[in-house]
């Protein structure tokens, strides 16, 4: 019995230590933003990497999500003669939930993994130590640009995903389900409020920060050569995905909870 309790205690303490280390890592990295130099060029490069190069995968995911949503809503709502609500359901679901969450998960898979692999490789090949010996703070040079780029770029990416997702719903609604185009567009913006879009963009900023933080954190503390880097990549994607879903619930409760 005592051994069982000790094992639980060990797991709990490890969890607390890990959480503390993560918070410290994020805090120390963000603190470097308040003193020069801030590497603007690196931030822009990461923004292009996260935003521009993620557009194809995010666009494809968003358009099919919108299309499926329109189709499913129609088949479900037709059971109680509420087909007219399809456009509203599509736009609210995409802007509030699916746009940010799907984009966040896609970026976690594409960008979070790449960040963990790149920084992890730099760690195991002494490149991070080399940065330090060249009087360059690795948190300032490697981590802060990625955190800021994630924070800034994800909302832009989600805005694009929202538009493409709604367009996907429109395509199915008009060309497959036979809705009147004007009526569909009318219903789309009739019940859409600023808060619906803004809440999605706030979520996107949080998800972008989480993806970058998890990628950088797991890469920065990776150990043990190629195997360690592979493990860091897996942890980065899994932890970012789980945290996105958890924080999505908390943010939804904060925005729309009664």
């Amino acid at each position, binding site marked *: 019995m005592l051994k069982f309790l000790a094992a639980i205690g060990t797991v709990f303490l490890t969890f607390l230590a890990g959480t503390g280390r993560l918070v410290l890592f994020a805090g120390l990295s963000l603190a470097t933003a308040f003193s020069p130099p801030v590497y603007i060029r690196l931030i822009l490069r990461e923004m292009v990497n996260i935003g521009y190069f993620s557009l194809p995968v995010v666009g494809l995911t968003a358009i099919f999500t919108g299309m499926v949503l329109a189709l499913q809503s129609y088949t479900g709502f037709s059971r109680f003669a509420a087909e007219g609500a399809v456009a509203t359901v599509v736009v609210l679901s995409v802007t509030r939930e699916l746009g940010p969450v799907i984009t966040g998960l896609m970026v976690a898979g594409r960008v979070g993994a790449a960040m963990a692999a790149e920084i992890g490789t*730099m760690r195991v090949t002494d490149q991070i130590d080399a940065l330090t010996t060249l009087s360059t703070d690795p948190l300032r040079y490697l981590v802060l640009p990625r955190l800021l780029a994630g924070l800034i770029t994800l909302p832009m990416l989600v805005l694009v995903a929202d538009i493409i997702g709604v367009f996907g719903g429109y395509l199915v609604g008009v060309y497959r389900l036979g809705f009147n185009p004007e009526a569909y567009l009318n219903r789309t913006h009739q019940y859409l409020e600023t808060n619906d879009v803004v809440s999605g963009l706030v979520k996107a900023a949080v998800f972008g920060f989480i993806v970058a933080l998890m990628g950088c954190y797991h890469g920065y503390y990776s150990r043990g050569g190629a195997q360690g880097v592979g493990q860091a990549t897996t942890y980065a994607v899994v932890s970012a995905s789980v945290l996105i879903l958890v924080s999505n619930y908390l943010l939804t409760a904060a925005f729309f909870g009664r």
Partner: protein
Amino acid sequence: MTNGSEVQKIVVTGLCKSFGNKRVLDGVEIDCTSGESLVIIGGSGTGKSVLVKCILGLLHPEAGSIRVDGAETVGLRHAARERLLQKFGMLFQGGALFDSLAVWENVAFGLMQGRGVERQAAKQIALAKLAAVGLGPEVSLLRPAELSGGMQKRVALARAIAAEPEVVFFDEPTTGLDPIMADIINNLIVKCVREVGATAVSITHDLVSARKIADRIAMLHQGRIIWCGPTAEIDHSGNPVVDQFINGRAEGPIKMEIRAG
């Protein structure tokens, strides 16, 4: 260990560092005078790299003192640590060149990021340093992955001396190189360090390299410096562990310890 009239650049006393239950450094005592080339030898896993990383501040020792130019450096943080690091250059065992940057940007990195030298001026210095290690300007635009192992070491050497540091650390500078390239690197180390007038601290288990670049050799064993003296005296150290190591004999006290372990 050194003549009292010489200026001591680095003085390490009672340095201890453990990883888990394993004590890697157990009271290391060593010093290095200004302009001297000190080589620390020892078997694999004896803590040579750990010692250098402690001096650089990349690892934090549990006990002991590291003085550079008479000032204590253990516990230095942020700006003070960055100022101290500007005195140092480091050649890592694997080169540790930045994959995402061109060769000249690697060499100029410390000048541009650490010292705020303007990009074009830093590039000119980088090209000069590359020339000093025998690499032409055509190499400067390549990526590190496009270079051979020997060329990567040369670039890493150029980067280590680019900012003309007061102390240059070399971590296994000839490991993984063929004997001819190893000799070229040794010659470059001697030449470059003399040119910038730097103090050199090298760690290696390559005795040919150690004899070529060292003014003084120290041997690290079981977490302590067990012998230290001029290079010419290492063959007459009178220490059985040193004798076994420099002669590369399988039989001797070091192997006995492995058996006992």
